[in-house]
């Protein structure tokens, strides 16, 4: 905890006494909070004893080697996971356009629209995707539809937030030029806003796709479709090598998709 404390000493006189006291208070407060929360979660450093390591070691020993014969059962579910992520991203990309225009200060001149949109998006982003999935599974029943819907809402919030910030950062002169020559709002958006945000739009959509892939992996835990179901099944059957095989497959797929998407995004911007 105290590793960072030595950053405080500076040449005398550079930091006022008051500021130094405040800093020390904050550090002590953080340390106390850490102590309290580690007691509350029963996660003190004392837990890292021989027994803990032997438990984790035994678990890893049981999981290794991953049972790759199980792989054929994985592919259809893996494809389903990716398809869910693709669909959710595509839907989010379409629906985010009106939202992000409404949440951008330079397009939505109406203060009310702007503020409502902002609050709406902020609230939307605070609900984790798995909790949305629990809600939708309750509403629409177990299945892929609930998962896609949860991913869609979750990624819509992120994408619209990112895009509205991009829209706010665009070159204003083009908007004014089209407005001055008599273009209406739609023409301003089509000819001045869209060309400027298109590369970022593609890049952020890919980024959200990456997030969606990771998120869709776990949706299966609550019955919202995808590969998570397999992991949970295999762990419940205590068939750890098979579960490990699924985890390894996910690991490599995520790395692969991240890599491809990063390459495309670098080329885009």
């Amino acid at each position: 905890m105290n590793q960072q404390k030595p950053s405080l000493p500076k040449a005398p006189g550079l930091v006022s006494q008051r500021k130094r006291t405040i800093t020390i208070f904050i550090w002590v407060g953080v340390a106390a909070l850490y102590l309290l929360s580690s007691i509350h979660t029963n996660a003190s450093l004392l837990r890292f004893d021989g027994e803990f390591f032997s438990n984790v070691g035994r678990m890893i020993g049981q999981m290794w080697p991953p049972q790759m014969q199980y792989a054929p059962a994985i592919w259809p579910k893996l494809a389903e996971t990716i398809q869910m992520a693709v669909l959710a991203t595509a839907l989010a990309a379409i629906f985010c356009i009106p939202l992000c225009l409404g949440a951008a200060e330079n397009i939505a001149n109406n203060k009310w629209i702007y503020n409502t949109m902002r609050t709406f998006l902020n609230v939307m982003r605070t609900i984790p995707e798995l909790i949305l999935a629990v809600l939708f599974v309750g509403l629409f029943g177990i299945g892929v539809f609930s998962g896609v819907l949860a991913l869609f809402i979750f990624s819509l919030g992120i994408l619209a937030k990112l895009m509205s910030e991009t829209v706010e950062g665009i070159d204003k002169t083009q908007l004014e030029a089209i407005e001055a020559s008599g273009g209406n709002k739609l023409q301003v958006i089509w000819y001045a806003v869209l060309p400027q945000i298109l590369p970022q739009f593609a890049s952020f959509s890919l980024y959200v796709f990456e997030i969606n892939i990771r998120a869709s992996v776990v949706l299966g835990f609550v019955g919202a479709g995808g590969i998570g179901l397999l992991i949970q099944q295999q762990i419940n059957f205590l068939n750890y090598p098979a579960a490990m095989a699924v985890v390894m497959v996910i690991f490599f797929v995520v790395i692969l998709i991240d890599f491809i998407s990063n390459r495309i995004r670098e080329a885009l911007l």
Partner: protein
Amino acid sequence: MNQQPYLLPPRRKRNVKALLHKCFWTLLLVSLIGWSMQGIADELNAERVFSMRTIERAQTVIPQLFQLNGDQFFRIVGLIVETLAIAFTGCIMAAILAVPLGFFTAKNMMGNTLIGRITHAFFKLWLNATRTFPEILLALIFVASIGPSPFAGVLAIAIGSTGMLGKLFGETIETVDMSLVETMQANGATRIQVLFYAILPQVVPEFLSYAMYRFEIDVRASTILGVIGAGGIGTLIVISAANRNWGEVGLIVLCIIVVVTVIDYLSAYARKKLV
């Protein structure tokens, strides 16, 4: 389309290569989406999803969601405190662990020797691997090995966060003003003195800012850890959804929204003050 062409700049020549490029990407995108639609179509069960039953269910569930059920309010508050405690403990552990990891992944700290380069590459790879795992998969492994407890959640958060924090810390250290380091070395300072007086003062504010940002993410992540039994509010939400106690689900979701918003706001304020 335009009656006054003389006002416009001459029309650009059509770029065939760019057009082909565009066609290729559009085709790829369309086929990807088509493949997904076709793959999920039979799973989607449009008749079942949009059946009368769903509509009836929606009519009962949605109003109930807003009739907040406060019977278990104090239990919910307790679990939210536990969620925050998991996120905080995990995040602090990760922040401490990430400092040495950051130094190992910073190119300017590891020097240009063979050992230095190997360490750099090794830790970089390790951090990338850690970042790939969703926290909840890590939590699943820990729950399986040490049993369902908040401790499993703390471990998952801690290990999941080191990946991102280590990478960001490393990048921060790489931007350190090396002339200060050289000055101190020229004055005969030991390595420890260089570390404490030249490097750390430059990087600590950014470290803290990143750690706070990661704490925001961790709070969101720890709310769902309970779904697999790693402590926190997630357990209760799954239980009340299974019991069709929608009023309680609504209250929990509301609590999560409020807590996450407040924490985001506080953290953004503190980060603005820091940097």
